[in-house]
């Protein structure tokens, strides 16, 4: 009894410590934020007449100038010191590696929170233990990656300081208080993570477990805020605010943080991190599955791979919509920036992106179809898969068809016009939206089939439910494709609006069909057990494909986002006068992204290997229950 009370006290203290850590940066930053407001007073003391006002380039409000203008750099050792190598490429590498690891360590705690929560609420004790162990394994992997993230962050800052001192100096002069809060947040994140991880075994039951779960929430709140702050820097570089035309800080730190693109960037990155984290963990599981020597291990890692994939895809599905919002905001901020992205210099990169999105969804579907093979009773769906393949391929081909692409006069002449002689006017946005919505809807259908693979609904209205679902999906396809075709018959400005009903249709399928299916499968009759581990090796390569493709796409989108500034360090405020102020070819970018992706994967495989050294010493009880019970993954099983 005394032991339990002691543990309770310990856990409450730990939670309080975490909340304290969470609030620490805010408490510490208040004086520094206030300092920003004091600055004009200091100016006043020097002489009333010296107060100079400036106009915010974005908010158009007037503010008192408290910062220096953005430096006008010149190519030379003072502003651009360098090695005998392109500094931009070095920075690209350091930045991308830090981002990969950062995304991973921010995403995994969210996974842990979800999985631990599932373990707490599930009534099956064996499953609860397995979920708990899985969450623990995840955080253990993340812990090793966490230190690497910090190391890479240090390398990134040193790279900035040594290769781009003038630019980094300007950025840090604007974001001085934010950077300090960021550093404190990092301390809070580290402290919270360690308390969360090392307190795991001390808080395993009842109220203590809930406290532990609350800690994961605090951990994720800190992690998310940390990411938001980092996003404010890139948001400022793309769409500066809070400064005047000369780049002079006007004293309002919120304006500097809350730029035109900050909100969509935040949402896009959270979703992206989650999908990426899912991919990495799924690849880890695939690696362990392929390396397993026993059926028990194979069953465990098969299950782990499935859960990671399901979580990753759950965040992948809304990702295109978040991307759409981001692009809309880019167009609203600067139309020319949007055109450079979607119809200008960087347009071919978006064709690659479309290809990648298609690959991600095709891999997911392929995995699910393979996964049907480990269920007895799911054979009835196998014969329909070929039709799904056909639908997916059609959607994919439409999705990757370009409409208008910037081209040289020679190319224009060779092609005989702005449009391709064969493709003609195909590939307008409503058709492309139709393509991707068909792909997503088909993925939802695959998931629904998977969720009911070995089950037969026993509810009295099951026949009606099945018919309703069939009709619903049929109408959804009809609506999406119909609107895609309609787009060719209406003016461009009206056509743009078709994306809304198309997306709404897909989301309706996602929410209503999943919900309806769950109701129908409640208490359903099992036709056979899910034989975890009895899945083809090919399916695991689909997971690896998913992970690699996602990593590659992340690198690609990061490159696009960064290079859209063209020859500006800070868009329209601070010009890049280095010898590398031009945009690389698509081929070079692709090679560089591949290099970054492979470096990340080689290093993370090393991290996995390090993690496996620890797991070998883990108590045998971790594998308990594998033989006895069938693990039930999220999403209906």
């Amino acid at each position, binding site marked *: 009894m005394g032991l339990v009370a002691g543990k309770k006290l310990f856990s409450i203290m730990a939670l309080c410590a975490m909340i304290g850590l969470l609030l620490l940066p805010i408490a510490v930053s208040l004086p520094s934020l206030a300092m920003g407001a004091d600055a004009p007073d200091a100016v006043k003391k020097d002489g009333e007449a010296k107060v100079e006002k400036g106009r915010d380039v974005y908010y158009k409000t007037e503010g008192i100038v408290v910062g220096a203008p953005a430096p*006008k750099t010149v190519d030379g050792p003072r502003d651009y010191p360098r090695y005998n190598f392109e500094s931009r490429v070095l920075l690209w590498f350091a930045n991308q590696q830090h981002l990969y690891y950062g995304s991973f360590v921010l995403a995994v705690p969210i996974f842990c929170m979800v999985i631990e929560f599932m373990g707490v609420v599930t009534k099956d004790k064996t499953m609860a233990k397995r979920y708990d162990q899985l969450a623990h394994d995840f955080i253990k992997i993340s812990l090793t990656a966490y230190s690497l993230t910090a190391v890479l962050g240090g390398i990134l800052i040193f790279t900035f300081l040594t290769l781009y001192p003038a630019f980094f100096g300007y950025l840090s002069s604007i974001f001085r208080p934010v950077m300090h809060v960021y550093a404190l947040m990092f301390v809070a994140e580290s402290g919270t993570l360690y308390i969360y991880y090392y307190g795991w075994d001390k808080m395993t039951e009842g109220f203590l477990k809930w406290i532990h779960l609350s800690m994961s929430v605090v951990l994720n709140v800190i992690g998310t805020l940390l990411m938001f702050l980092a996003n404010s820097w890139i948001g400022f570089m793309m769409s500066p605010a809070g400064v005047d*035309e000369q780049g002079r800080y006007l004293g309002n730190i919120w304006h500097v943080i809350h730029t035109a693109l900050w909100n969509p960037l935040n949402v896009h990155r959270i979703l992206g991190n989650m999908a990426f984290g899912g991919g990495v963990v799924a*690849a880890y599981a*695939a*690696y362990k599955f*392929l*390396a397993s020597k026993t059926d028990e291990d194979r069953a465990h890692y098969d299950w782990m791979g499935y859960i990671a994939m399901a979580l990753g895809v759950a965040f992948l599905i809304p990702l295109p919509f978040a991307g759409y919002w981001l692009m809309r905001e880019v167009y609203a901020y600067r139309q020319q920036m949007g*055109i*450079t992205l979607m*119809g*200008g*210099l960087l347009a*071919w990169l978006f*064709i*690659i992106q479309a*290809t*990648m999105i298609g690959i991600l969804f095709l891999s997911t579907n392929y995995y699910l179809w393979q996964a049907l093979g480990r269920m007895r009773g799911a054979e009835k769906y196998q014969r329909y898969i070929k039709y799904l393949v056909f639908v997916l391929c059609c959607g994919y081909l439409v999705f990757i068809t370009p409409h208008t692409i*910037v*081209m*040289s*006069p020679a*190319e*224009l*002449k060779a092609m005989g*016009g*702005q449009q391709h002689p064969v493709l003609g006017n195909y590939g307008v946005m409503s058709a492309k939206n139709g393509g991707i919505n068909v792909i997503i809807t088909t993925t939802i259908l695959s998931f629904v089939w998977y969720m009911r693979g070995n089950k037969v609904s026993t509810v009295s209205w099951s026949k009606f439910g099945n018919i309703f679902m069939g009709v619903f999906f049929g109408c959804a396809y009809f609506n999406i494709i119909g609107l895609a075709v309609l787009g060719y018959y209406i*003016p*461009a*400005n009206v056509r743009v609006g078709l994306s809304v009903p198309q997306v709404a249709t897909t989301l309706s399928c996602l929410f209503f069909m999943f919900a309806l299916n769950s109701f129908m499968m409640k208490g359903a009759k099992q036709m056979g057990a899910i034989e975890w581990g009895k899945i083809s090796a090919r399916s695991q*390569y689909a997971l*690896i*494909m998913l992970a*690699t*493709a996602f990593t*590659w796409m992340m690198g690609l989108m990061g490159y696009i986002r960064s*290079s859209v500034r*063209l*020859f500006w360090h800070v868009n*329209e405020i601070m*010009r890049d*006068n280095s010898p590398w*102020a*031009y*945009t*690389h*070819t*698509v*081929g*070079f*970018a*692709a*090679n560089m*992204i*591949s290099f970054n*992706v*492979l470096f990340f*994967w*080689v290093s993370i*495989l090393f991290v996995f*290997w390090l993690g496996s050294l620890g797991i070998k010493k883990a108590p045998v009880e971790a594998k308990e229950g594998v033989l006895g019970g069938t693990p039930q993954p999220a999403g209906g099983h």
Partner: protein
Amino acid sequence: MGDLIKEALSIGWPLLALLAGLLVYSQISISDAAAKKRATFKLSIGMLAAFILLIAIAHYETSFYGANRLLPVSLVLVTSMCFMLGIYFPNQAALLKIGGFMFLVAAGLSGYGNWLPQVEGGFPPKEEKIQFESMSAQQLADEGEKIIFGGIGQNKVQGAIGKGQCPLCHAFHKGMLGERAPNLDGLPERAAKERLVDPKYSQGKPLAREYAQKESFPGAGTAENGQEYIAESHSCPSCYVVAGYGVKGTNDKESPMPAIHKPPISLSLPELAAVDTWFYIREGRDAPTYEEIIKTYEKFIPEADRPKQLDDKAAGPPSALLADGTEPVDQIFSKAQCVACHTIPGIPGAVGTIGPKLEEGTNAPLRFKSPDYKGGATTTPDYIMESIVSPSAYVVKSFPDNTMPKVFGQKLSAGALKKIVDYLSQVKVGAPPPKIS
């Protein structure tokens, strides 16, 4: 290939030497025949794999920046190496196969990126801050000529156009045709002696004017001297319109000229000072000082409307395109100043009447089928393209020849021309205008 092997050996000879050393060592130290055979086999495979890896690295290294589109070949080499090693090192087979597969995926994506057309964003225009205020009058005039015509000594070259785009409408020498706007020859003298005394100008009584605009901005007043008149006519073209040069149908109450300090031309005050100085210097007159000219502009352009002098903004070179084709078609029409002379249904502000109304979906077929037509077009798009790049090929009746500049073939990108042609082809008499894209 020989160079590649040489480079590979120079990079990785220690690794190959180590493996060779191990091979020798295994031959000496292992006595069991079967074990020796196994070790020999594995080390040979290891050497082969290491060699492939070194070739891949050498290939990647030598063509990192180059136009060689076979870089993914390096990655495929690594893939095959990984799978090869996976076969002979079964304990690490999973890791090697996964690694190999990832290299294969990366190779495919990298290859895809290299297969697509290679578009490279060129260097930005050189940052060149011109110190107008410290220039001599001649230097200032030279800069002015560059702004108007695109280069020094270009003022007599037919079709020479600079950032200011003035020659699109104005003529600058005696005898040259200026159908759309007055000939600016002798402007400094004429401004004071003719324009200011014109009763319609209403000097000192802006509210008595009968033009579309009374004054440049409330309280700006009217010009007091010739230079102020030039400044006012640049900043407020509709404050006074020379008889015969107004927008048709407005009874010369409105000028087709855009305010020169506003988009799309957006000349800064120092640039305008340079332009005006050229007007004086080329006629052998003493120009007002830089500061005096600036003051005249400050009188007619409120501070909030004064464009900043391009310092760290990308200043387009004099010969830069008027439109590169990434803009919507209405902006292309505006940037190329088509709107000043033509009425174009569906394009805001395109109410010009100096040239014919552009309803080419209907008119073009009638024209190229007409017996008077001597051009080479047989389709509507061809006819429109010909009219743009070679306006004298066919001149619409009741409109004079040589009014439209012949420079649009050079000043508009292929994409911009295509957009114009696409749009105009769809404009038909009596039909709603096409949508702007």
